[in-house]
């Protein structure tokens, strides 16, 4: 199989326009004959479902939550980028495109990123019209802030809850279509498999989480908007229920999985407090604008932070990166924190934490100014740790946060399975090997509102409507497979809670495939994962039955998939013997310890294709060409 990216011809700024003209259209009268399934109702899913319904398609939308408003897009705090140049500071579509390609460390597809930058301006218009309460200036116009080290102010925000407000906008648009009858909303449904007929995605199998019923749903195309897989690490900033199951099921039906090793570790999270920890909490990285990061110079220095004098503190980021200081990109900040803690300088009870100190900012600007900027974050920190960050420095540690890898898609956002689309964080995305701050919301909404609704039309126009029915034998067969798998899970009556096994997998992944990776470590992970998988199938405890709400069964199914997926992730990390963005191979670094790319050998997207059980997946390579942005080594010195 060859990966066809289907990037249109022509200069980069004309590609999307040309493509929109050359795509086939569905006759308005025929649109209602088509049915589209959208799995997931986060930013990407809800906006795609609402827009497709507006266009006239029938949409079946699915979420495993009790309401489409709860997807984890809701937790994004910082903001959303758009090349509006409202601040007159020299921003442009081209600059956003350039920043995103460079920030992604040259592992993304130029044409996609350019299109993302183009539609970013429409997103803000759309959301403002929907009533999203973006921050405003006294003149009534939209406010912006600079975010994540960008040199222009292009980030739009709604207090610390931009994700929630954007999701509510999309949810409201979706609700309108549900009321109009164009969207059938299926809450509490988990997608457990994709049904292929003649090689095309024609439906899905779901489990009703409340009744346990396994159901078939047929359509003319299937869209996956099922988010990322950070929970493979067990502890991450993702919501408890985020999982890889839908994408993994698609992979097993022939959709290639691209760059699974590209994961982002966010530097400013609250450190783990003990073994009971169920998830990690992220604090906006805007904290680094005023906070100074340090550890004691002496690893045996156990004095309280306030009693450690200035000369005994090591401000390692300021020392190592004099020009960017505490504002280096996420991957650099995270790796340095890990390096200090691994070397024994970490603070806090577990030794996995570094100080983020606001004392000098409070001294310079006053407590009130700091309160105005970060009051809600300080409150949240105090609520969780019972320490007052105005008095003692915060303790922070990096945590898995976002996954740039995902299902491989072409320019039309279609996977290698015809009729199966992937949008938002679920696809391998426009962020290359590192995502910039405030770009995830942008990509989710770009895919959902402005890209997929066009490109799916091109696919549908080439296919007869209503060609699939749940009576087809393919549905029956796939449903039986799902039932067999569910029976096997519910038959697990061992002694170990499934979460304990998940935690064990998470530790292996964090240590060997986390912030820094080595060939030896990855190989040892590849040995350990099958053992944990065996342990799971031999000894996990799944009490209760499958015929009703059974949360352990839900988790067990997701963990079973993580236990398979994690292998491909390590395989990918092992294969990519270079460092780029969030993927840091210790074998490949500059003399100063910075990530060293190998553009000669690895300037490609690595897409893994399922070959059957007990067989290694095949590696397909999509070469990445950089015609518009010159390849350079990132440097933040």
């Amino acid at each position, binding site marked *: 199989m060859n990966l066809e990216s289907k990037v249109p011809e022509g200069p980069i700024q004309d590609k999307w326009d040309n493509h929109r003209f050359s795509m086939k259209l569905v006759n308005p009268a025929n649109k209602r004959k088509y049915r589209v399934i959208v799995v997931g109702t986060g930013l990407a899913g809800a906006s795609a479902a609402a827009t497709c319904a507006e266009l006239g398609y029938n949409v079946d939308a699915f979420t495993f939550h009790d309401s489409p*408003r709860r997807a984890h897009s809701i937790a994004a705090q910082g903001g959303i980028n758009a090349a509006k140049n409202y601040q007159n500071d020299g921003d442009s579509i081209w600059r956003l495109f350039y920043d995103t390609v460079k920030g992604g460390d040259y592992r993304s597809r130029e044409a996609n990123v350019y299109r993302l930058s183009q539609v970013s301006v429409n997103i803000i218009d759309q959301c403002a019209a929907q*009533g999203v309460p973006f921050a405003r200036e006294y003149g009534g116009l939209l406010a912006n802030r600079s975010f994540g080290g960008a040199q222009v102010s292009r980030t739009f925000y709604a207090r610390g809850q931009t994700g929630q407000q954007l999701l509510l906008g999309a949810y409201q648009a979706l609700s309108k279509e549900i009321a109009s009858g164009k969207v059938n909303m299926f*809450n509490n449904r988990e997608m457990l498999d994709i049904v292929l007929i003649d090689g095309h995605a024609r439906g899905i199998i779901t489990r009703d989480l409340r009744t346990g019923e396994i159901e078939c749903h047929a359509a003319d195309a299937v869209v996956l908007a099922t988010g990322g897989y950070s929970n493979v690490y067990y502890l991450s900033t993702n919501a408890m*229920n985020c999982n890889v199951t839908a994408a993994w099921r698609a992979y097993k039906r022939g959709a290639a999985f691209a760059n699974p090793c590209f994961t982002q570790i966010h530097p400013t999270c609250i450190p783990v407090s003990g073994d009971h920890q169920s998830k990690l909490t992220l604090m906006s990285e805007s904290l680094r604008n005023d906070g100074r990061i340090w550890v004691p110079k002496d690893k045996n220095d156990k004095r309280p932070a306030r009693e450690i004098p200035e000369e005994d503190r090591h401000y390692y980021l300021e020392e190592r990166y004099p020009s960017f200081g505490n504002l280096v990109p996420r991957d650099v900040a995270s790796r340095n924190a890990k390096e200090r803690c691994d070397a024994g300088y970490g603070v806090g009870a577990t030794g996995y934490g570094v100080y983020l100190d606001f004392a000098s900012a409070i001294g310079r600007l006053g407590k009130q100014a700091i309160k105005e900027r970060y009051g809600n974050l300080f409150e949240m920190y105090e609520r969780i740790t019972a320490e007052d960050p105005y008095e003692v420095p915060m303790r922070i540690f990096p945590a898995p946060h976002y996954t740039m890898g995902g299902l491989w898609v072409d320019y039309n956002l279609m996977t290698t399975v015809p009729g199966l689309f992937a949008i938002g964080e679920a696809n391998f995305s426009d962020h290359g090997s590192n995502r910039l701050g405030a770009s995830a919301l942008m990509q989710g909404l770009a895919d959902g509102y*402005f890209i997929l609704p066009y490109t799916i039309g091109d696919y549908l126009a080439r296919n007869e409507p209503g060609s699939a029915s749940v009576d087809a034998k393919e549905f029956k067969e796939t449903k039986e497979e799902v039932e067999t798998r569910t029976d096997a899970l519910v038959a697990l009556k061992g002694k170990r*809670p499934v979460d304990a096994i998940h935690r064990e997998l998470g530790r292996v992944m964090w240590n060997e495939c986390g912030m820094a990776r080595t060939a030896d470590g990855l190989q040892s992970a590849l040995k350990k994962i099958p053992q944990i998988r065996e342990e799971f199938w031999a000894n996990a405890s799944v009490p209760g039955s499958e015929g009703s*709400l059974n949360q352990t069964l839900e988790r067990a199914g997701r963990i079973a998939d993580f236990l398979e997926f994690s292998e491909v992730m390590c395989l990918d990390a092992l294969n990519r013997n270079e460092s780029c963005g969030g993927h840091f191979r210790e074998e490949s670094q500059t003399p100063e310890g910075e990530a060293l790319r190998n553009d000669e050998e690895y300037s490609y997207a690595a897409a893994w294709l399922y070959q059957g059980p007990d067989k290694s997946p095949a590696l397909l390579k999509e070469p990445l060409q950089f015609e518009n942005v010159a390849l350079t080594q990132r440097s933040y010195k």
Partner: protein
Amino acid sequence: MRLTLYVWRQPSADAQGDFVKYDLSDVSPDMSFLEMLDVLNANLEELGKEPIVFESDCREGICGTCSMVINGRAHGPESKTTVCQLHMRSFQDGETIYIEPWRARAFPVVKDLAVDRSAFDRIIQAGGYISVRTGSAPDANEMPIPKVESDLSMDAAACIGCGACVAACPNGSAMLFTSAKISHLGLVPQGQPERTKRVKKMVEQMDDELFGSCTNYGECQDACPKGISISFIGRMNKDYMKAKLIEVEEPRKEVESQ
């Protein structure tokens, strides 16, 4: 810490439920309340017993999934805090804790502590939106909005749809939720064309879901993890009165051509 828990267990919507007592030791004050329940559930799973069903997702206090009444308080004893952000240091060693699901006819129990809150979705579907066809929006800065109004709209929009207002209200009223959404959209110029229709439809849907009426107890705003003010209820009432009594929509008469 040692704790005695009385947890509401109910196998299904129509089954009889009751409190079950659990003794738990080795609870760390740094655990969140849900992590404490995770530990209890892991213990139950080790014994092959069905764990307590409770819902949670983001565990950052923003998704609105977690929902339980702890010692008679929706989301527990701390103000402006969801259960997932509540920590065990808010409790005493040896304390007895009662854990119950949201109680309202419109929120039937699904299992144990999980309830069905789809009534909220239906209230939004009735009119909690601004109709904007994708792609048809004007430039975002073409419509300046005074910061004060925009900020007030944001105050209302902060609602996370958890349902604590209903759970805390002795009348089982959903007016805080409904009024927050109506105010969020009604306070900004984009929301004006549909304002009358929206308030009518949403209030009617709220009534159809059999939520109770408001008697101004104020328990809802006290329980609200986002501190949403009951002054939005007054705003909704005003809007509703105007919509029903003053701006009654007449069927449009055709303008005769001359």
